[in-house]
């Protein structure tokens, strides 16, 4: 076992980790937007839109993420939409994260009792005011643990983007391994980096959650 040959690749590893973080954060942000919009559509009155969202969720939750990335990167150019590797991975992972987020956010909204909405209406508040001030904060708290778990899964899932030559951490590891032939050392190191990033995010989310959702839980 010798980790020293890896030392000269430290900059590539750092760059790879940064790309992984960028890919994760961008995909999570767009995925969350899709999630909120999808959840609102699922609870809306337009039947065809509900079916469309339901179809999207089932499609992206029941097919491999790797194939989704391949379709965006290899198939869409046949229809005139050619995206660079990073952007293609970000689009596919956003759609993947969005499909899970829709259900998570919808279940968060559903967890708020109808009586809370009625209490707001009875005080003379508008539909938007009831949603914004009464439904959304506790719904977000209820959805938060599942969203953060999904975020960590997304972080780990970004390694699939290596298959379309995105320069993220796993792709960099493959490159270093091909140069050094130190498979164990290379994969041990990036395993530790993934683990550290995941644990750091968990700790960060715990702090953010504690700061944002300060009210006591129901007994």
């Amino acid at each position, binding site marked *: 076992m010798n980790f020293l040959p890896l030392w000269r690749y430290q900059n590539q590893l750092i760059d790879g980790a940064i790309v992984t973080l960028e890919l994760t954060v961008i995909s999570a942000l767009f995925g969350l937007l899709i999630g909120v919009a999808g959840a609102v559509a699922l609870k809306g009155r337009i039947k065809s839109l509900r079916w469309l969202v339901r179809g999207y969720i089932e499609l992206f939750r029941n097919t491999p993420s790797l194939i989704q990335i391949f379709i965006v990167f290899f198939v869409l150019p046949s229809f005139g939409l050619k995206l660079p590797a990073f952007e293609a991975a970000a689009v596919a992972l956003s759609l993947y994260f969005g499909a899970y987020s829709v259900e998570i956010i919808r279940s968060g909204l559903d967890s708020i009792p109808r009586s809370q909405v009625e209490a707001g209406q009875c005080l*003379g508040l508008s539909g938007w*005011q009831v949603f914004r001030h009464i439904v959304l904060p*506790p719904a977000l708290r209820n959805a938060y643990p599942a969203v953060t778990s999904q975020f960590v899964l997304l972080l780990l899932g970004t390694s699939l983007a290596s298959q379309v030559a995105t320069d993220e951490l796993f792709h960099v590891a493959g490159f270093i391994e091909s140069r050094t032939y130190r498979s164990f050392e290379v994969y041990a190191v990036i395993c530790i980096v993934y683990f550290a990033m995941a644990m750091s995010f968990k700790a960060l989310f715990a702090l953010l959650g504690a700061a944002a959702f300060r*009210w006591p839980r129901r007994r």
Partner: protein
Amino acid sequence: MALVEIRDVHKKFGRVDVLKGVSLDVEEGEIVTIIGRSGSGKSTLLRCINALESVDAGEIRVEGEKVHARMRDLKKFRQRVGIVFQAFNLFPHLKVERNITLAPLLTGRIDKAKARALAEDVLTRVGLADKIDAWPEQLSGGQQQRVAIARCLAMAPHLMLFDEVTSALDPELVGEVLKVMEAMAKQGMTMILVTHEMGFARNVADRIVFMHQGRVWEQGPPAKLFANPETPELASFIASAK
């Protein structure tokens, strides 16, 4: 003109007729208590008065204005008609002060500078001024219900509806809520209460309305109604409630 006029109101849920032609007037300053068995339509009637349910036939007017779920000034109307629910329905993520001031602030009734003073005022009226910075979850059931009443009072309603507000409380907590309602009654607030507290109904109400099978079966002053029920249904209800 009565403050609340209910004329031949019908309401169905699916195939079930819940209200079958209810007519009732409530004068300004009057305290009307609605009693009756579960399923007799008491709570549904209360929800119809506040447009939480729309009526299928007949009409309800409050201060002369016809009430229905699609009325133009529904939000303004609901600011004038407070309702307190059995399950308190405080907002768990907001402290007591914010629970009370949220609606007055958002509806433009008061500005931010006056919010705390308003919360202090209505909390003093329900005997909970020291709980202004508490979370709802830190309060007992009775205290939560008193905050819910204070939250309604903050909107300065012209009419208060109470839907079995003591039913979810432990027996030792019922008294504190009834005391607050009694004080409101003395101050001249128009109130319609659905309750199973017969003692309270007898002592505080100006008029008792007994509902049975979706209809107003019998009504009158408490002393007369409890002492001499005219129908066997009310007699049996009073006997079972003792």
